[in-house]
Each structure stands twice: as C-alpha cells, then as structure tokens.
C-alpha cells in the first residue's frame, strides 16, 4: 500500500506538470490511459473484495440500467475531445457515487476491514487523478472542467431497503465504477492513438 501511495504522489506530480503544457501530447494521453487502466484494475479488485465480504452478491445480477448517465452524445458523430468530455462527465458522476458509498458506509458501519477501506480510498484517489488527467487532455483557453464529484442525476440508495438495500446499492456502484473505468481506458486509448500515441500502449 505504501508503494501505491508513493506512486500516486508521483503521478500527481507528473499530472501537475502535464497541466502546464497547453496541448496534450502522446505522453499525456498515454499517462491517462495508464491511469484509467490502473483504475479499472483496482475497481476490479474492490469489486472482488466486496463480493467476498457479501457472498450473496456472487449470484446477483442487478437489473435496471446504468446508474451513471452522462449527457448523450452520438458516438459516431462525436470527436475525440467530445468523447473524452463525456467520459469526464461520467467519471465525475462515478466519483459522486463513490463519495456517497464512502459516506453511507462510514455512517452505517464505521471503520471496516482495513484492506477494504484502503482499496476504497485508493480507487477514490485514482478516480480523482483520472479526472484531473482527462481535464488536462481537454482543457483549453475556452473550457473549464470540474473535477469535483457530481451528485446530480446519480441514484441514491433506497432507504426503504434498509442495510440490505445499501449493500445492493454499493455493489451496483462498484459495478458502475468498474464499467466506467473500463470505458475510460478504451476511450482514452482511442484518443491516445488519435493524438499519435502508440497503439500498443
């Protein structure tokens, strides 16, 4: 875990340096792809850990649509920047969901198992870094993107469901995070190749 934190600090430093540049190059996009992939990996770990905690979830497939729904932009017509911008919006909603999970879990359960708590915080930090990274890819003189959690439009846990409902909702959030992290890795990789980056990153 110490290695992870050190790596995060390094990435933050690099990210800050990247923000200073006016045009994103292959290095910036490649780094964003790496962060997205790392986030996807950690979201997978977190999901796995949660399913181990609540074993009933292993046979549960939640119905319903996506919890995160950024403004619809036709994929075919969207430019690379638009796709990244849409991704950025979705990631903000994911961050809002994650914040809700952290908050509600802390309210209900207090401090939980150490590895689970650590991994949750890591995912939150990774997601924040990815938001900074995507913002760096898109930000220009005329655009200003937020990196704060977006709670609008995100689904809250059903209070009538009680703690069981909270568990199911948390699981759905983790699934959503895993999905959007994967989507971010793909989108950013496409964007990276469009910007001249190596395809085999």
């Amino acid at each position, binding site marked *: 875990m110490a290695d992870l934190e050190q790596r995060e600090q390094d990435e933050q430093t690099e990210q800050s340096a990247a923000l200073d540049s006016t045009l994103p190059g292959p290095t910036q996009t490649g780094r964003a792809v790496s962060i997205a992939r790392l986030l996807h990996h950690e979201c997978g770990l977190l999901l796995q850990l949660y399913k181990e905690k609540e074993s*009933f979830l292993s046979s*549960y497939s939640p119905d319903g649509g996506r919890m995160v729904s950024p403004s619809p932009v036709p994929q075919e017509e969207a430019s690379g920047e638009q796709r990244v911008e849409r991704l950025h919006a979705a990631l903000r909603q994911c961050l809002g969901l994650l914040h809700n999970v952290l908050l509600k879990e802390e309210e209900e*359960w*207090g*401090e*939980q198992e150490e590895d689970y708590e650590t991994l949750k915080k890591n995912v939150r930090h990774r997601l924040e870094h990815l938001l900074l990274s995507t913002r760096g890819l898109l930000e220009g003189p005329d655009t200003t993107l937020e990196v704060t959690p977006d709670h609008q439009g995100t689904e809250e846990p059903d209070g009538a469901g*009680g703690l*069981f409902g909270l568990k199911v909702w948390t699981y759905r959030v983790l699934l959503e995070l895993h999905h959007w992290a994967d989507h971010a890795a793909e989108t950013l990789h496409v964007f990276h190749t469009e910007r001249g980056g190596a395809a085999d990153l």
Partner: protein
Amino acid sequence: MPHLSVNPSSKPNCSTVWLISVLLGLLAVHTNANDVLTVPQQVSLSTNMDSQQLSISWVAGAATTFDLMILRTELNESVFYETVSVMVSQLSGRHEWNWTSVEPLQCTSLSIKVRSREGQSTSEWSNTEILQGSDLPSEEEWQMFPLDRVVPVGANTTFCCIVKEGEQFGTINYGNTVMNTTRLSRRSYATTVVNQGLSRTSGTNVICYNSFKELKIGAVLFVGYPPLLSDFVCETHDLTSAVCLWNERNTNLNTKTRGTRHTLNNRTFTLSWSRNPKKECRVDHWEGNWTLVAVNPLGQYSLTDSAELSHRVTPVAPENLTSVAHAMNATVLWQWKYDGYSSLALVCQVELTSQGYKTNHTFSGVDLRAVVLPDLYPYEDYSVQVRCGAQQNFWKWGSWSETMSFKSSSIVPEAPDMWVWMNKDYTGQIFWKPLTRRQSRGLMTGYEVTLWSPGESLQHTDILPPDTFAVLVNLTLMATASSDNMVMATVTAKNTEGVSLPASVLIHLRLTDPDPRAVSQAVYTDSGFSLFWQSEVNTTCAYVVEWHNASCKWNCPVDWIKVAPGNTNVSIESANFQPGVRYNFSLYSSSSEAPELLQRWQGYMQELVPSSPVLSLLTTQEDSDILLTWGHIPLVSRRGFLLGYNIYISSGSQLTLLANLSDPGSRSYTVKGLSEGSYKFTVKAYTSAGEDTGATASIMLEPFTDWLILEILASLGVTALFLVIVTFLCYKKRKWVKKAFYPDIPEPKLPGDWSRSQAPLDVKPPHHSLVHMVERPEWDSSKEALVVIPEEDEDEDGQGIGDELVDTDEQTSLRYYNQVVDERPIRPRYPDSSDSSASSLDSARTDVTYTGIHTSGSSFVFQLDPQGSSEGHQPQADPSFCAGGGGGYRPQMQSRVPSDDMGPASPNPFPEPQAASGYKPQSSWQMDSPVDDGEGRSRASSLGSPTSIASTLFLLPDGEDHTEEKRQPSSSAATWLTNLLSSTKP
C-alpha cells in the same frame, strides 16, 4: 355470580314459597344480565412495528372480561383467541390490551374483534378492525420484514417475505441456509430463525428468492450483546484533569448506528472504534464522582467511581533522559511534562539493563529529576528507563520513560588469573584466562609475561597480543644460572587505560616426581566433580585445583580454578568435560611460596565401556589346562575405571561365562578340566558402564602323551613287580605249589605183551590212564583207537598217590578240557559214546579229540582208587564199563588189536613216539568221580545226553619228561606254570 343460599332449618310450609321466590329471582337476574353485557364499541388499533406490538382498545362499560380474536385476514386463520381480563382505564375510560405478534405486523393484514364475557355469557362480537399489512395489492413490490433488526444472542426472529404481484415465491435464506417457510397470505411467507448466534460485523443477510432463484429482496440482522463494563476508575496525570478508564465487552454491534453510545456524568462522548477492550475518556477537571453509562439497542450498563485527586495520581513518563557516566557510577537525569510535579513527592524506579540482565533501583523525593546509579562496571554498555508513582497515597506506577543508553568509563584491567604447567624437565607453559569484558575494563591491548629469578635478578619479558592466553617457556638456562632453583612467572594485562596488577606463580626448578601422592577417585555429579580434602591446621592459604586429560603427558592444556582459603571442597564443572575421558585433578596450595601438590584425584565425567579390548590375548596349553594371558588396555581406550575381566568360552555363536575376575590387574587365567578339542576364548574387560567388545583367541587342546606313557610304564612296572613277587613266592613255596597244583602223576606203563595179544582187548580201566592223542592224518576213523595206559608209575612212585589224595574231591567230578589241544568248534555229540567218539575221530583234521574222560557210558572213566593206588595195585578195567562201551571210544593201545567193531587195526597205530608212549593228563586233569557201579552207570547214562564238548584234558607227551619230572620236581612246577600261563589264552 350470585350466590344461592339454602337454609335447611326453614319450615316446610315456608320453604316452597321461598324456593319459588329464589327461582324467580334467578330468572330475573339472568334476564337482567343479558341486558347488561355490552358489545365492545369503538375498537381501535395502534402498533409498534419495531416491537411488533399491537395495542387494542375499546369501550365496553364496566365489563372486565373479554374474548379477543385475531385472525389473518386473507386466510381467515386464527392467530390469537383468548379470554382476557381487562380493566377500564380511569383516564381514557377505555379498555386497552397489548398483544405482541410473532411475525412482523407488516407481514399480512390482521382482523381483530372483541366481545364481552361474563361467565358463559358473551356479548356479540364487536366490529372487526383490520390492521392492514404490507401485502395489500396496492403494494405490489417485493418486501421483507423486519429490516435491520438487532437481537441478542440466542433470540428467535421471524422474517416474512412479501412476493411481488405476479411473481412466485422461491425460498428464504438465512445466510447460506435455506429456511422452512410458512405461508401467511397470498403473497406473504414467513420463516423463523431460532437461537441465533453472533452475526458478522456487517450483519447476517436474510434473502428472499423468487421461484427462479433470483435474489429479490433481503434484510440484515444483527445479533450481539448488550454492553458490559468493568474496572471503571478515574485518575490524573497532570494533577488537574481526569482520565477515566474501563474495560468493555465486545458487543458485536460495532456499526455507527447500532454501536454502543457512552455518557460520562451525563455528557455524551464518542469513542473511536477499537478491538481493544480497554477504553478511556478524558475529562478536563477533576470532579471526584463519575458515572459512566453505556447503551446499545440491546440494553445499557452503568458504573460509578469516586476518589480524591491526590489518591489517583499516576505520573506521566519522565521525558528527555540524559546521563553523566563514570567508570563505577552514572547520574541519570530527566524532565517532567507538568510543572505541578515540582511539589509532588515521587518514588521512581530506574531499570538498568546490561548484557541482558536487568536490575531495578528505587529512589524517592520531591521534585525527583535525577538519580545516581552506583556499582557500575567500567567500560560497560547500559540502558536505563524510569517510571514514577506518587510517594504518598501511591496509586500506581506511571508509564516507563523512553530507554536511554550510556557507557561507563574504562579503567585499568583486573589482574589475570594465571597458572603454570611444567613438564618433567625445565619446559612448561604459562596459562592465563581471557579477561572478560568486565574484567578488561576497557579495550585490551595485550599481555606481558615476565620470568625472573629472584636470587639472580635474571629477567625475561614477553609482550603478547590480547588474543594470546598461553606461552611456552624453557627454564633450562635460568635453572643453570639460578642458585635457589626458583623462578617467578608474572603476567599483567594491558588496556588503553594502563597495566593491571601482576599475577604471579613461583616455579620450583627441582625436578621431582610430580605424582608423589596417592590418587583418589573423583565422582562426577550434576554439579560437576566434587572434590574434598582435609584442611591443614593453621593453614590460611588458598588453593588451586588443576585438571587435565589424564592421557596427556606433555605440554598438556590444563584448566584450573582458585579456591578461597578455608574451603575444603569444590565442584569442578567445565563445558570441556567429555564422557569416557579420564581427568587428573591436582590440589595445590596457593601462597607466596611455590605451589605445593596436596592431593590428587582421577575421575570420569561419565564412564563408558572400553573402546578396545585387551591387547595380546594368548592361549597356551599347559598340560591338560589352557592358560589365557593378555595385556593391558591403553588408558585412552579404557574410558572408565576397569573393574575386572569376564572370561567366556565360545560355543557356536554363544558365549558362556567361565569366570569373572574382579581384579583389574589380572593378566592371566587358567582354564582347567577341558577335554581334547578346539576352543575359543573371549576376554572382556568391564567398567561400571559394561563390557567391551572382547578379545578372542582359539586353541586346539592336544592329548597329554607324557602322562599316558607314564601311566603305561607304571602299569607295566607294577605288573612286572607283581610277577616277580608271584614268581618269588612261587619259588619259595614251590613245594606247596607243586603239591597244590601239580602233584606227581603216575606215569602210565605199557605192558610188554601188548603187541602180541591178538585177542580182543580185555580192558580193565585203570584208575588213572594217560591217553595220548596221536595225530595221524592218514588214519581214518576205522583205525582210530585209544590206548589205555596203565598207571604203573603210580606204583613205582608213591608220591603220586599222596598227591592224588589231595585232589580227592576233584576226582568225583567230570571235567573237560580241550583248550590246549583242540581249538576247533565243538561239534554236537550223539548220546552213543562210540558214535561220539567216532564222530570226533571222523574229523579229517583232528586226529585226537581227546575225550580223556568222557561222560558217556562208552567213555573210559579213570576212576581214582585211592586205596588201590596207595597200595600200588594195577588199575583194573571195569567189565561193566567195557560191556557198555563196545565199539565206542577205545584206548589207543587197543588199536593194535582191532576189534570187530572197529575193523582192521592199523599195523602201526602209533608211529610217533608220543603215540607210543601214550598221553598223560596234566595235573589238572579231572577224574570221574569214584562212584559205585550203579552210580557210575547211572551217571554214565545221564552223561550220555548231548553235551557240549570241550576237551578238558591236557594231553602231554610222557616218557622222558615224566622221568625228568620225577627227578626235578621244581622244573616240573615251572613247566606247569608255563602251561598254566599259556592255557589262559582264549
């Protein structure tokens, strides 16, 4: 109920009236009662969903007994139907009764109705009130109850699952367990979990699945304990505030909303969650009295404490420890966090650690901030930590301070412990023990060894590095130069601070026997070799006990220990002691003079069996015994004190103990009583640990020929001596012998006209006849004849008569001798004597089988007539004998006159001189017993039966011998003796 009272003493005329009145009264009462039982009105319901309690209230006037009925509305199943007593509430004027449902009240709709009861009388039922459940069609989604319930360990909980409209119920799982369910309504199903155990931290999931085993709804159940507190005390560290401490049981309800909430003196505080049962809460001011309350969904617990501040002082840990170190002591200083300690009387504990050993020093005083630690070792690393408590009203020790380390200063080292080992010449070694870290007292730089002769002021010094602990010395030169034969060996140690005091040993240069004293055995115990000695009177010297491997003789690595004066025993223990190794221990006096050997011991740490057998086992035959000899076992191989030897003899693979020699000095053993053959002997030495493997030697035991020869020679000598004696005696008693064994026998005489007589032989058997058997191979049986020789000699020599008288008894019996003449197998004889004689004569090989005196009737029996003989009468033939024996056995002399029976006689029947002179029986011949005729006949007839024949007479040639015999009786006796000896041959 009204009482019916009957008075038996009432008058009959009045009783009828009275009875009628009573019956009427009862009827009136009954009619009136129906009128007063009111139907409950205004039935209302209120619920507590968490406690699953239903409160039912109604208005029913003064009635106190009611029937309550609760039904599940949809299935019209009775859940509760009982008669209860309910008093009217004075405040509300209503009747109110509470009922707790097993299932959550939301599970399904319940119908409730009430009626009044008085005895068996009841009112009508009230209107039915319905408590609507959550399974109404309007609530069509999946639902589950109860949600997030917290229950104590061991409780039972019923859950219900309300199925979504249009879907089918599957199962209810408690954790991973599929539960049995009960249907409560069209959509509602329930299950009960009994005796619940602790749940997980995040609760136990109760999940409802549809018929496709799809998870549809669930609830979480928490099972834990109510709070339980103990050991609640409040104390102060800063002399102002209070810190309250207690222990708390883990309730297993650690979530924020279900966790334990605490208040201290009614002030709520929050504890960070921790698995540690020790909890604490800080209060800014000392209040003196405290009440701690802990509450969770399952209950609450409270404890109180009260104390004065001065009684609850627990000092904080001293801070900023420093030290001022010297060689033998150090000052430790620290600071206090709070100024209030400046007026506080404290007792402080200083824990000093050096080389893993801890020592505690206690100090006390007001405003204690520094202490001096005495008795330190120089050049030693120490670590120290301090804690304190209130000196007055001691409550408890405060926390230990941080550990502070320091090192004491160094000084000159201690004098080394030295010893000298001298060989049996002027060479030797000087040893000294390595100084320990504490004895070094600083960084060691080396040792200095000095040899000097006090009388001659000769001195030799060696500087040695610090890792040297022995040096070889040769005192030959000093011995030649020294006049007092004394050399002083001195060793000093040096470190960075200087040189130690010298350690010295005075060495005698006299070459004396180093082992003048008797050696005792030293016994090894758990504490080592225990050595004891007698203290010499008025001796105040110390002692040195030196030991080394006993098998070492030159420049031995020795070890030693110094013993204080006055001691008379010591236990020697060393990690170098090895089992099976003999050690020599020597006790020396240690004084300013040269050490004097006082006593010696030998011992084994542990005795083992000898590692090798005896050397040179030899076997030697000594006469018929076997001598075993062997050599000693080398000291190194003994590995124990030899106790003796066991002698074994091998028989196959088995050893048989012959002897146990308990003398360890034995070197031989003689084995006796063995017969000839091959033997194998094994000699095993033994110690207290047992026998060695043994040495074996073989030997082939030869017969002892010398003795045999000696025995034979001795036997022969004895025999010869006996013969000489017998011969001598016989010679001395030859007359007696002759009379006894060889009386003179009259020589038969042949009448001169024997040749002329052609008439049948008129045989007159003489008393004694000498029959000569003539061997004539050509003579057939028809020609054989016997010649009866009259014993004329007897007449001539009366001596024979006299001799015959001696054997009178013998003449009465018949004897047969054939040993001399005929050794052939004896043939069967016929009863007829002639046949017998003929058969004997038929033998082609034997011309004479003399039957000198045959027992058959046809035999001639030489009857001794003592009287006739003495008178010189011719022996007369007994006619009766002749008649009886015609044609049978005939005297040889008759051969010249052949009888009819015998056929033509040989013209020369006795061609040989012996034959002519006839036969003469030896002295041993036997005569027939002199019986009368009748007797003789009867005997002859009896003797005619088949008889084993063995010729029993010696037929000796007569003639010259006989005459010579007359002349030389002694030679006759000798002849007889010779014959006797020869006759003994089988």
